[in-house]
């Protein structure tokens, strides 16, 4: 025990460090070192202004190719919009309509019939189905972004690195495939998505300068919120629950000592 256990623990601790770290140019770089204010384990909260800027980036840039089909307009009260703003946003959206009285869903030009949105509607998708999405994107499928931050190893840091990692020169000898772009943070480094963010791609209504880095941070904050709108409520409740449990543990310990007082 005296020898075996410490040896075992030591080995268990160094084992990960012994693992392979290939210096191969198609392996992705680890995500950039970046921390977002909402990532605080206990006290992280979202900045409502940043969420709204991020939503603007999604709406004006990303939604051309990426759906966000688990967010309904009424959920946007979570990023600080009031009921009137939500109603207006929804009404400005074109939602695929139910069949009309003739049973049609397309008009005579072959365009999908739409109706204005209501707060209960989820955000409409840019393409009707997967095949349409691929046909419009050289065979690649832009994934839905509702849970993208949770669905990728590295989370928010990864998505931020990806979005702000375009424009770098590939290393000599690296082959950028047709219809793909070089991004060192993406597995294989050949990504189908063209660089989505440019300086001034959106004009922020609160006057913030729209650099690529700012746009990336804002949209990643928004997408993190979209992946888990209940995050702030979760942490707040966690704080209260753990405090309660610590108090209860203290009381239980005192009860335990009282019961066992004469036993030893």
């Amino acid at each position: 025990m005296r020898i075996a256990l410490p040896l075992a623990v030591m080995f268990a601790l160094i084992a990960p460090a012994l693992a392979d770290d290939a210096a191969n140019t198609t392996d992705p770089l680890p995500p950039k070192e970046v921390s977002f204010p909402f990532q605080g384990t206990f006290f992280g909260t979202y900045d409502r202004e940043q969420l709204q800027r991020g939503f603007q980036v999604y709406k004006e840039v990303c939604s051309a190719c990426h759906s966000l089909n688990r967010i309904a307009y009424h959920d946007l009260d979570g990023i600080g919009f009031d009921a009137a703003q939500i109603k207006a946003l929804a009404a400005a959206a074109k939602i695929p309509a139910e069949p009309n009285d003739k049973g049609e869903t397309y008009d005579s030009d072959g365009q999908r019939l739409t109706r204005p949105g209501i707060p209960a509607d989820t955000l409409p998708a840019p393409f009707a189905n997967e095949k349409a999405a691929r046909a419009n994107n050289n065979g690649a499928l832009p994934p839905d972004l509702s849970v993208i931050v949770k669905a990728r190893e590295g989370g928010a840091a990864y998505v931020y690195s990806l979005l702000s990692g375009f424009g770098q020169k590939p290393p000599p000898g690296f082959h950028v495939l047709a219809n793909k772009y070089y991004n060192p943070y993406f597995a294989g480094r050949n990504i189908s998505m063209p660089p989505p963010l440019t300086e001034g791609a959106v004009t922020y209504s609160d006057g913030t300068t729209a650099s690529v880095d700012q746009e990336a941070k804002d949209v990643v904050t928004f997408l993190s919120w979209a992946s888990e709108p209940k995050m702030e409520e979760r942490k707040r409740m966690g704080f209260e629950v753990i405090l309660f449990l610590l108090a209860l543990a203290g009381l239980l310990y005192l009860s335990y000592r009282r019961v066992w007082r004469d036993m030893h």
Partner: protein
Amino acid sequence: MATTNTAEPTRRDFIHIATGTVAAVGVGLAAWPFIDQMNPSSAVLALSSVEIDIGSIQEGQQSVFMWRSKPVFVRRRTKKEIAEAEAVSMNDLPDKLARNLNLPEDAPATDKNRIEKPDWLIVIGICTHLGCIPLNNQGEFGGYLCPCHGSQYDTAGRIRKGPAPENLAVPPYAFIGPTKIKIG
């Protein structure tokens, strides 16, 4: 050896009472999410009110819309139908209450108390007997006939004959434009 404490709770046992109480409170608080999860979710609540454009309904026609999973009859009444409804005396009504969720419970079932604008009759299309959907423009009273057990309603959706105990319910609604209503 353990000494048994047979006296009534003294300061020594207070700790156990305190611990037990706090634990019980914790269990109670923990139970709430399990109960509340059965309440309507936010997706369901988002559909708790709907806005409907009724401008395309012709005079004498009815459209049916869904609200909170229930059918709502929106009927554009003709002048004749309005006059008939207004002329009915309270004595002829088996159910004398308006059953209008926009008005107090004891409001009488006059035609005025059944509508916002006389042209438009808006009622929940569920027979108050056993829940079937009444048929439009049938029965002796120009209103509705329920095919299940023969209840008949007039042009203000009030029960006139048959086993149904109450007038068709009027849902909470308001006009938000000349031909636009919000229900719920």
